[in-house]
């Protein structure tokens, strides 16, 4: 299956590559003695968590690093040197022999030119094709990457295209000169799962048709399992393991690889064993923590135009003590529902009832008093804490605002909360920038549970974290939930994460509920085609099963 056997001559070889960055007059190593080879027609995945040096080592192939970087080692493309950088520069190589696909197609494409113009420019940069021929070729390329109506949409500007279409255009540009090597840096990370599945299909198909070798840089073990032939695992700037994809998943050699694989949420495997116990007050009528009744939320448009209808007639009910997973792709309205439940957005019509109180039209003052009964964990730990406040002040803020504690008692309570999220008490005096992403998210959770709320909304609380950190944060969350018994609306795009936590799952699409029900039923016997698609598209970290599933 791998191309290694058929052609032993590597198309790209990196040997002993070390990259350092100059930070405050000192050299900080980003990679140390990285070596790997890429063979023709092969898909090589470089995986690692943030800071592992996976992007840095691939960027140095095209000498794309910032000026503050210092590289040493040897990079060869066929029999030409790329490092040390030849005197003639790499202009002839970039885009021609080695091309790059970036993570975020919106920012990688120039917004003021049509995609056609950008592809034509890439073609004419390396060939002497005239404009008309280049345009023909651009349309051909767009067709090749499965771009809908290429003849017409070649003149579209990036903002007129969807994320998946933009990424296709980006790929068309990258393959315009039949490069020997394609470097794809997290090509699907910014995309929804169903679109991700399509783009991965496309890459697999292109490899076959163009016989390009692909370096796939990713953090997602599911994507690796789906696409790669061989895998290089990186950590802290070093290659710690490289092997065949099947071997890697079946018998990981290195301790770290094993941990990494264990931490990946695996749809259909990591489910919580039992749904949490029904709420303690079982003899009473089951209380409802959150009820939406035919709720409509519309964002205001500019200049009095009707705005975007984000949530269109959603009704749902979250019983006390339960965790509801709210899943959907970007733009499905899941975050809007969360913000609506927190009183950050007002519903246009319908009702929103939190902890038995109708907050649809509650005054800001009334709402503020109610806020001690519900709280929220935000998505991005880098921006959800005030950078100018010590973390103890951030955690203590709700206690001070609602006059629950002050003085010595406040210090005591903040310390207790830090311990509950498994951080040392003494950290209360630290600032957020001194903490890692996972630690900051723990602080965010501590702040949210400070008042022991009845309802917690968690909006993608782990999507910005590395998998190994995500696993520990999710476990902490699960443990806190069963101990404190709060109800939780858990918003996520990741079915495997939701499966770990939720009792019930609600699937959203375009502001409407597709279906809703018990976790097990939704994941194993979805009634709706869309849910089936979502489940099928979710990448599973198992190369054998994944490839079987695809066929």
């Amino acid at each position: 299956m791998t191309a290694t056997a058929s052609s032993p001559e590597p198309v790209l070889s990196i040997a002993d590559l070390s990259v350092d960055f100059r930070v405050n007059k000192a050299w900080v190593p980003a990679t140390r003695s990285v070596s790997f080879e890429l063979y023709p027609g092969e898909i090589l995945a470089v995986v690692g968590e943030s800071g592992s040096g996976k992007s840095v080592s691939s960027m140095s192939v095209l000498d794309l690093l910032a000026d503050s970087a210092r590289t040493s080692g040897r990079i060869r493309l066929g029999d030409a040197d790329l490092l040390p950088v030849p005197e003639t520069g790499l202009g002839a190589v970039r885009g021609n022999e080695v091309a790059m696909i970036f993570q975020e197609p919106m920012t990688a494409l120039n917004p003021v030119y049509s995609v056609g113009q950008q592809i034509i420019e890439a073609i004419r940069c390396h060939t002497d094709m005239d404009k008309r021929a280049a345009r023909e070729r651009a349309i051909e390329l767009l067709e090749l990457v499965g771009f809908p109506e290429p003849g017409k949409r070649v003149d579209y500007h990036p903002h007129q295209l969807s994320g998946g279409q933009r990424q296709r255009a980006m790929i068309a540009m990258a393959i315009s000169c039949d490069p020997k090597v394609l470097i794809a840096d997290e090509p699907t990370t910014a995309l929804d799962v169903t679109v991700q599945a399509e783009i991965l299909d496309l890459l697999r198909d292109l490899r076959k048709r163009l016989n390009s070798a692909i370096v796939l840089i990713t953090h997602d073990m599911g994507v690796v399992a789906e696409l790669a032939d061989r895998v290089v695992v990186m950590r802290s700037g070093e290659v710690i393991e490289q092997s065949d994809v099947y071997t890697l998943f079946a018998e990981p050699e290195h301790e770290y690889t094993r941990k990494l694989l264990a931490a990946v949420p695996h749809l259909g495997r990591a489910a919580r064993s039992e749904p949490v116990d029904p709420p303690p007050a079982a003899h009473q009528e089951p209380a409802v923590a959150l009820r939406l009744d035919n709720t409509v939320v519309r964002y205001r448009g500019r200049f009095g135009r009707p705005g975007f209808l984000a949530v269109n007639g959603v009704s749902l009910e979250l019983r006390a003590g339960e965790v509801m997973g709210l899943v959907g792709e970007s733009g499905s309205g899941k975050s809007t529902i969360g913000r609506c439940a927190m009183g950050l957005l007002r519903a246009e019509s319908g009702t929103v009832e939190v902890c038995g109180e109708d907050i649809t039209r509650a005054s800001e003052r009334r709402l503020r008093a109610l806020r001690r009964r519900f709280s929220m964990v935000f998505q991005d730990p880098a921006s959800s804490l005030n950078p100018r406040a010590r973390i103890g002040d951030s955690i203590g803020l709700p206690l001070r605002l609602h006059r629950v504690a002050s003085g010595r008692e406040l210090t005591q309570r903040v310390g207790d909360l830090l311990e509950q999220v498994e951080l040392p008490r003494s950290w209360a005096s630290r600032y957020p920038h001194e903490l890692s992403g996972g630690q900051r998210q723990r602080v965010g959770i501590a702040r949210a549970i400070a008042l022991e709320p009845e309802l917690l909304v968690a909006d993608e609380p782990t999507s910005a974290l590395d998998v190994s950190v995500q696993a520990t944060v999710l476990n902490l969350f699960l443990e806190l939930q069963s101990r404190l018994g709060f109800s939780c609306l858990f918003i996520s795009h990741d079915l495997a994460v939701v499966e770990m936590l939720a009792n019930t799952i609600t699937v959203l699409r375009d502001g409407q509920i597709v279906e809703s029900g018990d976790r097990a039923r939704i994941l194993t016997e979805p009634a709706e085609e869309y849910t089936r698609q979502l489940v099928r598209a979710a990448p599973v970290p198992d190369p054998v099963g994944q490839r079987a599933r695809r066929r």
Partner: protein
Amino acid sequence: MTTLPDQKDAVGFDPVRIGAFGRCLRNPRVLIAGGFLAIIGLLVLLAPWLAPADYRAQIDLPLTNAGVLGTDDFGRDVLSRLIVGVRTSMLVAVLAVLVAGAAGVFLGLVAGFRGGWLSVVIMRGIDILLSFPPIVLAIAAVAILGPELRNVVIVIGILYIPRFTRVVYTQVLSLREAEYVQADRVLGASSTRTMFRTVLPNVTAPIIVQGSLSLSFAVQIEAGLSFLGLGAQPPLPSLGTMVGAGRDFLEVQPSLLIFPAIVIVAIVLALNVVGDGLRDVLDPRRGQS
């Protein structure tokens, strides 16, 4: 993609830069300019004790070389008058910038944070204020209000409100959507509290930069108004009045004009250098990375 070692904060300023003042002094230009401003600061505080003679007293005949810098047309000690003049000018400038800063920051915060019609009213008002050439507006306003230092402070203060409002407004607009500002609201903080306790501390850096640059403009405008006789009234000297008075004796005693003029230029230059230095370290958009 966060493989680069210098992880920047997602929103606003990198908090590591809080200790930036030390870092900006490492630039030798900023160090020299800062040192000069420190001396000026001392001069302002200690003027009555540093001045060798009473700035109103006649110490010798007019236009002689008595004292260090000679005497003026009334026989008063020029050095003493220069020291007191620096104090007058700097006090006017500092007070004016404080007025502008307080009002401008408040308006910018409110406009950015509240949004809606209030922001339209405030920001359009700012546009109107900006559409007048400042020196012309200042002359007209002081002429109407009466030539008095208090009026100069008020007029310069009002003229420089827009600079602060605009810089704060744009910052607040982006901060308003930051999750930690939303978090304040979810936790039950009032919007007044959020505005002053959470948002304001996160926009201080551009305010400081704007303040130091505005100070240099305020010194210039004060000098201009006083030169025209609309600022400090005799016998109180300011840098502008001294240049104005010295103009008549340019051929007899050029030092009367030259020294205060040099001081004005030096102060303005130093303020600009320090302001730029602060901006380099505090403003992420101009950062090197």
